[in-house]
């Protein structure tokens, strides 16, 4: 308990906390000074050896937005994974000592390992098959302690971690998971529960079992990740790791380089975002009192004050509802960006008088029909990706041809009320640009905006010709993450 004594003695804890908060700010979380003070006060009321209470106390005072939780958690894990023995083991029941786990491990080995390895010492001597067997057993029983032990073992064995090697945690995670063959184990677990049940499983039961095991496997993955993180921190120190492991806030995730997991987070984040945006826009409409004085109405109301115009009335401005044409490049690299923008635009479609969507790669197709036929935006976007007819020759972006076709087919529909949004990185594979189309659009439409998911420093490098198109647009915007996209949409309405 020497560590705990150090911790409670005050100064080091405050210093540690300050470092922690600096790192939170680095990760993008807005932590104010008062919140810092609150956190310091909060932890004086919490028993420090209770790791999860400690974590919640910090979270309640420092994190005021649920979307930031993941970033907080990562920093927390890094910062407090090695501080003192009582923090050494993950999660709330972090009271057991590693020794106990080791014993348990030996025990399990005795049961699971077919007897041939009787009396063997620690888990180090286990064969890969035995480890797999243990993994299978622990998943089947949903035994947390055992799962944790297996996670430790497998990291030790498979991750091949070398001290001082400057690779990130994901590399080790990948190596560990590759060796564990979790998909195969899931199959086996399913087989086993099929056999165990007296009659054949109904689809519902099957699904439930499947979800249950998947849930456990996810837990295991988290354990493994935590273990790797712990080892990395031990090896390279807190500050260095905090920097490498730093996870961007959902609104800062780059559309073009999002990992699969981040994509999922983005998808989850977009729904509340659109809802918020819609509410905000609707409110802005209702409360915009910038209209001129409504003389007639004012006089009418002045009667109740004996002819004194005590309560001036204003004309409500007729909000201008633009017509939106979204023209989106959906070729590989920028597809996800187009998807999010379409999602966002359609979610707030009632702010516009009309929304039409077009997608292109080297051919161009109108996809408004997919959105009209269903309420479910996700499904519509899925259909856009699978059914739209956008390939003309080889399926490589050809902005020039796409624009030309667009102009000849739908150009006449663009009117003075229309706002055209063009989404894409303008990487034209050195085809001709046909930028006259954009120029024509600008002449006819109210506004033409170009949204580019690439960082500004990459514009006009290589085959990117956004500058050429940009001269004919009313604005070119860098739109790399949710924050920028949201800002643009706000500007648009």
């Amino acid at each position, binding site marked *: 308990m020497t560590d705990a004594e150090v911790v409670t003695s005050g100064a080091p804890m405050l210093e540690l906390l300050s470092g922690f908060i600096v790192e939170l700010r680095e990760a993008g979380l807005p932590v104010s000074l008062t919140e810092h003070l609150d956190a310091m006060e909060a932890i004086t009321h919490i028993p420090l050896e209770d790791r999860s209470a400690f974590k*919640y106390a910090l979270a309640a005072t420092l994190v005021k937005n649920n979307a930031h939780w993941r970033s907080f958690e990562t920093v927390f894990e890094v910062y407090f994974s090695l501080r003192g023995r009582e923090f050494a083991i993950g999660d709330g029941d972090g009271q057991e000592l590693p020794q106990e786990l080791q014993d348990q491990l030996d025990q399990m080995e005795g049961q699971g390992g077919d007897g041939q390895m009787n009396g063997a010492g620690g888990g180090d001597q286990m064969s890969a098959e035995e480890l797999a067997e243990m993994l299978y057993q622990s998943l089947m029983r949903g035994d947390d302690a055992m799962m944790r032990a297996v996670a430790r073992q497998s990291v030790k064995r498979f991750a091949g971690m070398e001290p001082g090697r400057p690779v990130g945690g994901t590399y080790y995670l990948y190596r560990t998971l590759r060796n564990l063959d979790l998909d195969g184990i*899931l199959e086996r677990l399913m087989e086993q529960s099929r056999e165990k049940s007296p009659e054949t499983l109904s689809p519902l039961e099957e*699904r439930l079992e499947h*979800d249950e095991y998947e849930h456990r496997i996810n837990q295991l993955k988290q354990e493994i990740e935590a273990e790797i993180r712990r080892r990395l921190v031990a090896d390279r120190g807190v500050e260095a790791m905090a920097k490498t492991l730093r996870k961007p806030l959902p609104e800062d995730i780059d559309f073009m380089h999002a990992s699969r997991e981040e994509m999922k987070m983005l998808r989850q984040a977009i729904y509340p975002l659109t809802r*918020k945006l819609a509410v905000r826009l609707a409110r802005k409409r209702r*409360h915009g009192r910038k209209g001129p004085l409504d003389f007639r109405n004012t006089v009418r109301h002045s009667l109740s004050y004996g002819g004194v115009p005590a309560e001036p009335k204003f004309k409500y401005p007729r909000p201008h509802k633009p017509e939106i044409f979204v023209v989106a490049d959906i070729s590989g690299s920028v597809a996800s960006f187009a998807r999010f923008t379409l999602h966002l635009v359609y979610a707030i479609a009632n702010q516009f008088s009309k929304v039409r969507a077009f997608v292109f790669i080297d051919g161009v197709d109108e996809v408004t029909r997919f959105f009209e036929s269903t309420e*479910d935006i996700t499904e519509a976007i899925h259909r856009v990706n699978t059914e739209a007819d956008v390939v003309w020759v080889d399926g490589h972006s050809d902005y020039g041809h796409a624009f030309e076709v667009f102009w000849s087919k739908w150009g006449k529909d663009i009117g003075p009320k229309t706002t055209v949004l063009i989404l894409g990185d303008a990487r034209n594979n050195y085809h001709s640009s046909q930028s006259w189309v954009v120029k024509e659009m600008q002449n006819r439409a109210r506004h033409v905006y170009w949204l580019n998911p690439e960082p500004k420093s990459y514009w006009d490098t290589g085959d990117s010709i956004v500058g050429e198109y940009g001269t004919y647009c009313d604005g070119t915007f860098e739109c790399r993450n949710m924050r920028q996209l949201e800002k643009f949409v706000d500007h648009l309405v």
Partner: protein
Amino acid sequence: MASEDQSFRFDSVDAVRTRLAEVDYLSDEGIAGIVYLADRLQKPILVEGPAGTGKTQLAKSVAEITNSRLIRLQCYEGLDESKALYEWNYKKQLLRIQATKAEGDTAAWDEIEEDIFSDDFLLTRPLLEAIRAEDPVVLLIDEVDRVEVETEALLLEILSDYQVSIPELGTIEARQIPLVFLTSNNTRELSEALKRRCLFLHIDYPDMEREKRIVLTKVPGITESLADQVARIVRSIRQLELKKSPSVSETLDWARTLMLLGISTIDGDIAASTANILLKYQTDIAKAQKEFSNDNSSVAKAGLKG
């Protein structure tokens, strides 16, 4: 501020948890820990989370275990000072003035003024009431995200200093520090000023174990196996991409319905035919029905995903 020797409501995090459990509110570590902290730090709690996860219920339960009166302020667009804080009872004031005139009383104007701006003519609204209460109270400011940003400012003085300033009367300080809960459905970003003054608690859908226990406590007579099945199916449904995931209250409604129908085990058909209790959108219901009554193809697909 209240006197320093104010005794705290709770002794430890575990005490919060067990006492909440006594009134059938099953908390988890985070919830209990933050309620405990709020009591110690004398700070309000901002509770956020999807609808129907027991945000309001938490405030009610805490009021119950601390034997406090619950004062509730329901927020809505257009809520203003006179509905939230206080209002002068101007009818009564008028009467008072007229009465003076009728009696031919020549009392000095100063006197009357002092009289009509006194406690007798003050209508207290929830916030002021909570501040002035002698008995322990829990103040619940429900759905605070519905008021406009400007109106939020009304709350700031109360939340940080537990006092209300009334120009005619001066500042009224709290006689005891009430436990304050603010709930938000997160339809808009609350102002930094408000967030900074609160402890933040996000209540998400409960995990399977907790949901099962909630079903067991809240639905009398339900069997363990049925509760387990209910919780597992709801968890599966929440993994689908839906417009609105089923909330805890909908889970409970569903469990009660199954009880009424006298069902002891759920199969695919029953799940599909009663899905309309869990889900409120036609597209969601269709999706869930497809998932549950289909053959193994959907499972196989899910397997590929995982």
